[in-house]
């Protein structure tokens, strides 16, 4: 089975890949769908180096706009699902909920319970399906991170009795303040830092423990479990 990942940014793709490893999915069967590969240097001629560097880093975090464009144009979806290569295919779409209100998704006010998180997740999924014109239903998995992907990564560093990391108001700041983050700061590429910080997601036992600290992570991991069980 081949799994494509359309995500806000590269860093998110690396985190999701670590989760997929725990389901024994091989690296070579995971495709990072990268819209920038459809353009070339001539096309982006004229941009200053600083702008380019910013873009490179921006690609690590990305934005809803990237995902929205991918979904509405359907370009990566067509190329992924309709190309002639023989493989069963699933596409993962990743979005953080922190900026959803800018994209016409109403936030759940002051979310506290699992039901609130699931409601938030469902609203984002509904928007994604709307962008895609309800195409590819049944072939999609949704990695919807309540607030930010950082909240998912924080689950690996959670201590006992800690509440859902989706409740942390600024998960990115929280992650950046961890001792573990300081040890990866020497990596120039932010995606590399996230790949290392989320490395333990590839360990079945550690992932099982981690999902207890974040409902939206648990929902995603359970959806992967169901899909891999039914397709293998």
């Amino acid at each position, binding site marked *: 089975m081949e799994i494509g990942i359309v995500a806000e940014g590269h860093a998110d*793709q*690396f985190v999701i890949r670590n989760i997929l*490893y725990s389901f024994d999915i*091989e*690296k*070579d069967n995971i*495709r*990072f*769908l*990268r819209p920038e*590969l*459809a353009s070339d240097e001539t096309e982006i001629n004229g941009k200053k180096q600083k702008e380019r560097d910013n873009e490179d880093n921006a690609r690590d975090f990305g934005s809803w706009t990237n995902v929205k464009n991918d979904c509405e144009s359907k370009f990566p979806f067509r*190329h*992924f699902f*309709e*190309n*002639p*290569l*023989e493989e069963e295919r699933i596409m993962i779409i990743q979005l953080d909920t922190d900026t959803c209100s800018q994209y016409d998704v109403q936030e759940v006010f002051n979310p506290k319970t699992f039901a609130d998180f699931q409601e938030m997740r469902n609203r984002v999924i509904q928007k994604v399906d709307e962008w895609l014109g309800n195409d590819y239903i049944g072939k999609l998995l949704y990695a919807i991170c309540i607030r930010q992907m950082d909240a998912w990564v924080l689950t690996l560093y959670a201590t006992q009795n800690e509440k859902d990391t989706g409740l942390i108001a600024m998960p990115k700041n929280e992650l950046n303040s961890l001792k573990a983050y300081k040890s990866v700061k020497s990596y120039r*590429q932010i*995606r*590399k830092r996230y790949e290392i910080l989320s490395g333990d997601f*590839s360990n079945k036992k550690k992932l099982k423990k981690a999902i207890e600290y974040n409902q939206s992570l648990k929902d995603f991991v359970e959806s992967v479990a169901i899909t891999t069980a039914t397709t293998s």
Partner: protein
Amino acid sequence: MLQEITIKNFKSIAEDTIELGRVNVFIGENGCGKSNILEAVGFASALENGKIELETLVEKGIRVAKPSLMRGSFSKNKNKDKIEISLSFSKDKKLDLHLIPNSEDKDDIYANWIEEELVTSIQKLTSFYQNIKAIGDEKEFLEVLKNVIPILEKNNQGNDKLSKESSEMLSAFKGILPLPNAPDDSLYFSDYFQSFFSHFVIYSLSTPILRGLLDDSNIDPVGIYGGNLDVLIANFDKEERKELLEYNYLIDWLDSFVVDTNDILKLKGYKLNRSQSTLYFTDKYMMKKNNIFSSENANEGILHVLFYLALMISKRTPKFFAIDNIESSLNPHLCRHLMTELCKLAKKHDKQLLITTHNPAILDGLNLFDEEVRLFVVSRNKTGHTKTRRVKLKPDVQNKMGEKYKLSELWTRGYLGAISENF
């Protein structure tokens, strides 16, 4: 043809099985282990009488390192001592090799390699020989002898320790027992193995060598870096030459080529006395009186193309070989067309090829609906082991493939894998 190979514990390949076709193209990011696959095949093909000589490996284009690096250097390595290669040529032609360094210093870079079975058989035989009178089990002794005698006979000529031991044992056995006949069903003594597999080499062309400016390896009829192309072509028969000339259209300016066997053109000032090559080309756009180029002066593209075509057409070149980085010096459109033609020539002349490339255009020359033509993506898995995946097409898309899904574009846009995810 070699139909399947399983490689264990060779360089970056911890364990991998590849089902091969006639023309096999391997793609993957730099350092993923493509060349290691070719080298594993070459390593097995170097086996002669139970031994692999260091010199043979080098001549075949295999990068030799100390044994601990020739074997996989991974932390969870179970079989640290040996390289295992299983080859299936057809249902009844299979060969399992377990290879260990043949040296007292087990990590000596100069070590030859030897079949583990040969070592254990000789040890067993020596032990039997010493204890035969005490044990008295002559039947078992003869059984072991039957398997080992042919190996001893092939191995008793050299000056190394093994050859001397083989020679001594043979003399001893001849004195005490009637020798059984050598079994004739052993694959690696067979003509098939010798004619098809043993000549396997990895070609990796170098322009200065194609131009005759540097010496190549000692492999005949052409060197692995492109040497001796002129000699090969000079010895083409009428049909081979005719077939080669049919491909002149591949290079726009090319009128024809000549091999100046007596090297007279050199004396007439067509080249300096630096190049050993006697191959010359004529340009169709230039004046007939003054249109000859030596290999030293011709463009490199024609030298590469001519080499590949000669390799396919000649009866003297190996039936099974590899080409590392076939795209070198070639225009993308030429890559695509050349690849299509090489597939046709491979069938016509019954050759089997392993090819690596970094040029997407090569993929557009492959018809993956043809079972004999195969494309493999080579990658490192999360633990760094080289793994190979065959790219197959959906059976129902045969008539639907449009330009938008060209394999070259699927590769460059990231839908095929075989690219780095780090940048």
